[in-house]
């Protein structure tokens, strides 16, 4: 595969979407990996799927419903126990700057 399909800019765009900061080496490795993997998955293009429905669910279809009733008891201490930073009943986070 001499032609490079994926650009560094595309990798950076996707990394931004995925909220992962990549080092320059990681960017280049991922660019090369993506080239190789996408070249491989391009073989799906050999199939004519124009008349095929996508598989949305593998198990039994439909979404089971239940009554809109509270079935658990709130336990804020348990929920906050793993917090990296907390203040009273809140998860503490850096200021969200405009």
């Amino acid at each position: 595969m001499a032609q490079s399909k994926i650009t560094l800019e595309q990798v950076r765009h996707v990394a931004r979407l995925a909220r992962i900061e990549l080092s320059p080496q990681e960017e280049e490795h991922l660019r090369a990996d993506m080239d190789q993997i996408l070249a491989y998955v391009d073989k799906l293009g050999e199939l004519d799927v124009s008349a095929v429905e996508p598989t949305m669910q593998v198990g039994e279809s439909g979404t089971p419903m239940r009554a809109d009733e509270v079935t658990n008891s709130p336990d804020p201490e348990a929920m906050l126990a793993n917090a990296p930073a907390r203040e009273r009943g809140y998860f503490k986070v850096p200021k969200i700057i405009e």
Partner: protein
Amino acid sequence: MASPSELNRLTIANAATMLRKREISSTELTRACLDRIAAVEPRLHAFLTVTNEQALEQAAAADRRLKAGDAPELCGIPLGIKDIYATKGVATTCASKILGNFIPPFDATVIAKLRAEGAVFAGKTNMDEFAMGSSTENSAFGPTMNPHDLSRVAGGSSGGSAAAVAADEILGALGTDTGGSIREPASFCGVVGIKPTYSRVSRYGVIAFASSLDQVGPFAKTVRDAAIMLRSLAGHDPRDSTCSARAVPDYPRALSGDVKGLRIGVPKEYFVAGMEPEVERSVRAALKQYEAMGAKTIDISLPHTAYAIACYYLVATAEASANLARYDGIRYGMRAAAEDTIALYEMTRAQGFGAEVKRRIILGTFALSAGYYDAYYLKAMKVRTLIRRDFERAFETCDVIVTPVAPATAFKLGEKMNDPLTMYLSDIFTISVNLAGLPGLAIPSGYDTNNLPIGMQIIGAPFAEETILRAGDAFERSGAVTLKRPAL
């Protein structure tokens, strides 16, 4: 080095009988396992957390219950739990740095079920980070070695659970299987592993990788033991909206030993160039054994097999990119130092995720992104339909389908780490089964000239676990294979 009592070498079925007759106690059995764990862990690294104290407390409680009579079959049995399951009060890492010191405030549904039956939990087993891998080399905490040859991988992603059962550290273990992560390590380690039909077992409390593919399943030393565990794991759970409400059969009862007239499909696409000849010979010999027992083999074709890996690596990575978006450093786990929230997310995820996880998130995000969704993700979803249809057609004339589990036996540590695609291609025989949502059983079919285990896969129609378990049990009891205990 076996523990003096060697009780850790028992099967679940035999241990359960002896516990019931009070010939042994759960405390003795658990001690034997914990001693074995202490003896081999420095070389094996199957466990990330060993819960000695809690295990002995559970064993004592189990002994009281066994004394009172009428305890479930799993009462007092020491098990290992892949570190992907939420276990209340016990560290759960998913073999990742990003979860930090996360201690779940709840049990996964299947953990709660096993607890209620009085099972004993010896600890949390090693895995590929977020279940992404086929060798357990992607664990953030070091790989697990293959008990049959410590220079080789145990398989993945449930390598720790498979190795721990093979090494007689525990009598059974839980794994998960998204693209082969129970069946392949079972095959590499020479133990039994089953991935049930998608929706047969609740995924509540199982850290999600790919929600339309993930499935819970047991590792065991025999098919009967796997059937005993599956009976306890399966069943409806309102907290998993994909979980089936179908009644759970008494799986051990299906193990009649009879396979006369069983129609076994043999797909030509699973016996191809590039496979190790010894693997092919082993599975073909097993098919001859089935014929000798009265089964009938039928040549079939699953024409879209060659597209399964491409399909999987778009569907699974897309789903993973969504499932792993929650690891943001806000509510639990590791948090990087940062001035603003976006930087907090980006640095936490940069520092917390390993290379393979990042690779799959990036690939999955790309496949779902604007301009590429149709060409990649949607196309893969349509190919998935074609793969499912191949199996539906096959099951019109077959009761089960038999294939190798993997094209080769356990490879050397480090051998496949340079090229992700090479690693992905080793999933070729297991992946279609997840895409189609079918049950698949892996059992030992022999050993190669290096004494490495070879695994055979028995695939069933949806909810036909009884049929594949019966087929596997009959082969196991035929004497065609003499199991080899690792020299460890």
